[in-house]
């Protein structure tokens, strides 16, 4: 009679595929990223075959690493047989060196180090931002092309193109898998943080519409940011500030939609259900980010979210402090999106008319959220007819069925 078998840890495959890819890339080089991805896929398939029948081994991670390592050595041998003219001075020396390198890369601390190098490589400034994100998701987070495409509401071929561009760049420019040092490290860190920030935002603004994949984008962005924070060379005030920002947002995950999957606005959310541990950890990170000395956009956004996360109610929120922070944020990041979000606190502090004046000057006429916020603010000023026009425009612009539902409900409540 068969014994009851061990279960696979949740997300083990996704996480391990990122680790395997990072470790193998150190041995194979970035130019051979496709071979690396093949080895990872073969390894997971071998596990699928074996574990389905024989159960999960005692140490699944070690099992995967061993299989991947053996597969890598096989490929190297095969490649050597194919290029016999490339004779070695001492037969077998290169293989021995390669094996040693592989062994070393699979030591636990080297795995973390490999992942960090991989993050920095993926965020190479020579690669467009959208390719960076696709590459991070594919190699470090173990997402399939189909999953990335669905998370970004785009075609698989588009994602393939983005990945192809990055791989080609690595091949053509002989990029090494090395984290930069000194000033170059500081510069590259900014690109890395921008990429992780974008990754988190993409996930966050879509968790409402879709579901699990989008939430996983946020969790992966947090995992990688945490990796940066845990290493002495990569941690910085900005890393802590970004981590704090992510934690405040993540604390509210479960309250952003109700049981029917409908969107719940900040003012309506059940604050007792916010994750207090994540809020506490967010505050801890915010302190570590040394906000008295540094005030990057991450610091300011984290500070804004900390005020929301710690307010006892929507009404009791410290709106004037939030408005002050938005003004500072706008000074370093003068984007209409920042102004759009600032208008909410402006309305709370100085009244709806000031906010409407700000909103009317913003060049966001194709953005559904602009009209949703404008509609809200117009309602506060009791300009109901204009408000319903704004909501109608917002409904026309949104691609998200759940947003549309919410907007339609609000529109129907306006008595003109």
């Amino acid at each position, binding site marked *: 009679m068969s014994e009851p078998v061990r279960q696979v840890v949740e997300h083990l495959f996704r996480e391990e595929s990122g680790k395997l890819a990072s470790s193998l890339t150190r041995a194979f080089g970035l130019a051979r990223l496709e071979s690396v991805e093949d080895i990872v896929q073969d390894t997971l398939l071998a596990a699928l075959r074996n*574990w*389905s029948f024989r159960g999960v081994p005692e140490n699944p991670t070690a099992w995967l690493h061993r299989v991947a390592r053996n597969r890598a050595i096989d490929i190297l041998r095969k490649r050597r047989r194919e290029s016999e003219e490339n004779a070695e001075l001492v037969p077998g020396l290169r293989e021995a060196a390669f094996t040693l390198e592989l062994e070393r890369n699979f030591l636990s601390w080297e795995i973390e180090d490999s992942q960090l190098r991989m993050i920095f490589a993926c965020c190479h400034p020579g690669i467009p931002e959208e390719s960076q994100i696709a590459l991070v998701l594919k190699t470090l987070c173990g997402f399939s092309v189909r*999953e990335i495409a669905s998370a970004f509401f785009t075609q698989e071929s588009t994602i393939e193109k983005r990945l192809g561009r990055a791989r080609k760049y690595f091949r053509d420019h002989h990029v090494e898998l090395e984290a930069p040092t000194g000033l170059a490290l500081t510069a590259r860190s900014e690109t890395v943080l921008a990429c992780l920030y974008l990754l988190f935002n993409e996930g966050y603004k879509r968790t409402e519409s879709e579901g699990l994949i989008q939430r996983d984008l946020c969790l992966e962005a947090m995992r990688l940011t945490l990796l940066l924070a845990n290493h002495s060379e990569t941690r910085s005030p900005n890393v802590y500030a970004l981590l704090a920002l992510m934690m405040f947002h993540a604390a509210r995950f479960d309250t952003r939609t109700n049981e029917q999957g409908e969107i719940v606005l900040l003012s309506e959310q059940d604050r007792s259900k916010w994750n207090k541990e994540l809020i506490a950890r967010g505050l801890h990170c915010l302190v570590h980010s040394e906000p008295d000395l540094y005030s990057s956009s991450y610091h300011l956004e984290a500070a804004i979210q900390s005020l929301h996360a710690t307010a006892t109610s929507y009404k009791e929120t410290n709106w004037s402090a939030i408005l002050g922070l938005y003004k500072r944020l706008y000074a370093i990041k003068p984007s209409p999106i920042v102004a759009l979000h600032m208008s909410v606190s402006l309305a709370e502090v100085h009244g709806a008319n000031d906010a409407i004046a700000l909103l009317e000057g913003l060049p966001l006429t194709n953005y559904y959220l602009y009209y949703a916020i404008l509609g809200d603010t117009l309602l506060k000023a009791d300009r109901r007819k204009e408000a319903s026009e704004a909501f109608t425009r917002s409904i026309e612009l949104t691609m998200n069925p759940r947003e549309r539902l919410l907007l339609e409900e609000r529109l129907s409540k306006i008595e003109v």
Partner: protein
Amino acid sequence: MNEFVFLYRGSGNMQSNRSPEEMEASIKRWQAWFNKLSEEGKLKDRGIPLLRESKYVAAGGTIIDGPFAEGKEVIGGISIIKAKDLAEAAEIAKSCPVFEAGGSVEVRPVTPM
């Protein structure tokens, strides 16, 4: 109780484009299925998974590299199941996770002793 060999075809051979998350989910479904059969006393042996590569040995000693079958025809593993008769065994096979990957099961009664 009679014994039946389940020949799984196409499992594990056609999954090269599945994501890590999907593969993990697939392992869980197989395990749940085997566990359920085990609890019901219908599992004699989980059996073994098979690799795709093969050699075909013909009469006269000729050896040819396989497999000849298409991906979905290649046997990916075998198990031994206990059931009253062939009809019940086939009924059990209907709940097998192999179908989720586009595979199939062949159910063969073992010759009684």
